[in-house]
C-alpha cells in the first residue's frame, strides 16, 4: 500500500497501473515460467527432480527479496500448479512450499543483505528440510516406506542450481523492479 505514504507521485493512469501490476506480478510469473520450463519436453536426465528444485529456489529467493509480491495465496496457487504438473500426489509440494515460505519469512530480516554464502547455506538447510517433508508426506500418502535417494537427489539438485538461478533471479528483480517502492 505504498500509495498511502505521503509524497509526490505521478497520477495513476491506467497504463501506469498496468505497468505496476506487471512489475508486482513478476516474481509469480517467473516462478510459473520456471515450473513450465521444468515440465517442458526437453528430455533432460533427472528432469522429474528439477520441478520441485526450481519451485523451491524461486519461492525462497522471492520470499527473501520481495515477500509482498509472492504472498502465501500466490504460493498456494503456484504449489498446486506444481503438484498438478508433476507426478507427485496433489498437495505435497503445495504444503512444503508454503512451510518453506513461512520459515523464510520468519528469518527474512537476518538473511537480508548478508553474504551470499550464508544465503546459500540457509537455502540448503531449508531445501533439505522441505525435501524431507516431501518424502514423509509421500510415505504417509502411499502408506509405504519409500526410498530416500530420490528425495536426497531432489535436495541436491535444488542446492546445486541455487547459485546460478539466484544470480539470474536477482538480475531479473533489478531489471523489473517497482520504481516507486524504492
Amino acid at each position, binding site marked *: 500500500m505504498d500509495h498511502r505514504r505521503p509524497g509526490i507521485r505521478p497520477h495513476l493512469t491506467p497504463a501506469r497501473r498496468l505497468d505496476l501490476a506487471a512489475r508486482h506480478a513478476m516474481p509469480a510469473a517467473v516462478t510459473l515460467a520456471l515450473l513450465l520450463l521444468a515440465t517442458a519436453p526437453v528430455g533432460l536426465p533427472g528432469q522429474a527432480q528439477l520441478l520441485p528444485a526450481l519451485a523451491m529456489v524461486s519461492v525462497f529467493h522471492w520470499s527473501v527479496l520481495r515477500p509482498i509480491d509472492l504472498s502465501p495465496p500466490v504460493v498456494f496457487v503456484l504449489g498446486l500448479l506444481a503438484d498438478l504438473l508433476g507426478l507427485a500426489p496433489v498437495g505435497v509440494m503445495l*504444503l512444503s512450499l*508454503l512451510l518453506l515460505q513461512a520459515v523464510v519469512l520468519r528469518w527474512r530480516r537476518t538473511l537480508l543483505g548478508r553474504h551470499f554464502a550464508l544465503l546459500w547455506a540457509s537455502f540448503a538447510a531449508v531445501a533439505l528440510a522441505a525435501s524431507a517433508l516431501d518424502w514423509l508426506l509421500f510415505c504417509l500418502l502411499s502408506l509405504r516406506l519409500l526410498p530416500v535417494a530420490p528425495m536426497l537427489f531432489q535436495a541436491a539438485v535444488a542446492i546445486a542450481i541455487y547459485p546460478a538461478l539466484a544470480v539470474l533471479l536477482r538480475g531479473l528483480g533489478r531489471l523489473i523492479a517497482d520504481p516507486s517502492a524504492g
Partner: protein
Amino acid sequence: MIRLSIPTRHALARLMLPVLVAASFAMMLLGKADAVLAERARVALGDLLSPLYGLVAPPLMHVRDTAQELFGLVEMGRENARLREENQTLRRWQAVAMALDAENTLLKAHLRWVPDAAVSFVTARVVDDAGGVYARAVLVALPPGHRMTRGRIVLDAQGLVGRVIQVGARSARIMLLTDLNSRVPVTLQNSRGRALLVGTNGPRPRLMYWTEGTEPSEGERIVTSAEVGAFPAGLPVGTVHYSASHVPEVELVADLNRLELVRIFDYGLEGLRPADPPRAAEPAARDGEHARR
C-alpha cells in the same frame, strides 16, 4: 476495494498461513480420496499446456541437439583413436585371413579337392507362425508355380532355422529347430565331435548322443554335419550353453522368435527326407511325439 482497518488486516495476514496450510492438507486428502478428480485436473492442465509445449519444443530440441553435437565433438577424438586401433587389429586379421585363404586354395589344389556345387536359394516371407500339427513351425508364402520340395534347408540372416516339411501350391511349412520332432545332426566345432540337436518345444534345443570323449564345452560353436545326407556340413547353428540342471543346450544364432524373411536353400540333398507329417484328423496318429505340448 474493501477498506479494512489495520488491526483487521494484520489479523487476516496472520490467519492466512494456517488457513492455507489447512487447505493444502484438505487438497491432499481430496487427492487421496478422489484420485479421478486429481487425474482430471492434470489432464485438463495438460490439454491447456500442450499447445505451449508444442511451440517451445522445437527450439528446445534444437538447443539440446546442438549441445549434444558439441559433446559429440569432444568425444570424437577418443572415438577416432579407438577406431584407429580397431582398424589396425582388423587389418592384422585381414592379413591372417588372406594368408589362410591362399594356403587353403593351395592345399585344395594339392588334394584335387572337388569343390562344393553352387547352391541356389529363394527368399520367402514368413506369413504365419502357428498352425499345422507341429508346435514350432512357420508358414512361408511362395509364388504359384514354384518348384519347392520337402527337405530343403531354411536359414535366416544368421543361421539355421529348420527344414521344409510340407509344400503346398502357394505356401510351404517349415519345422523349426526348436520343435519337439526336430532332429539335426551337428558337429561340435572345437572337438569335431558329432551329436544330435533335439528340439524340446522350448527356446533352446538340447544336445544328445555326442560321441564318447567329446563332451560339448560351454560356448562351443555348433555347425551342421553332413552325417546322413540331410544337411550340408558347416551351416552355423548356435553355441553350447549348459542349463541349470547341467544339460547341454544350444543358444541358436537364428532369431526364431522374430522370423520375417527366410532363405530356402536347395542343396540337392537326396539323403534323409523328413517324414510325412501325421494327419491331424486321425487320432491314432497323434501319439505322444507328434502331439502338441
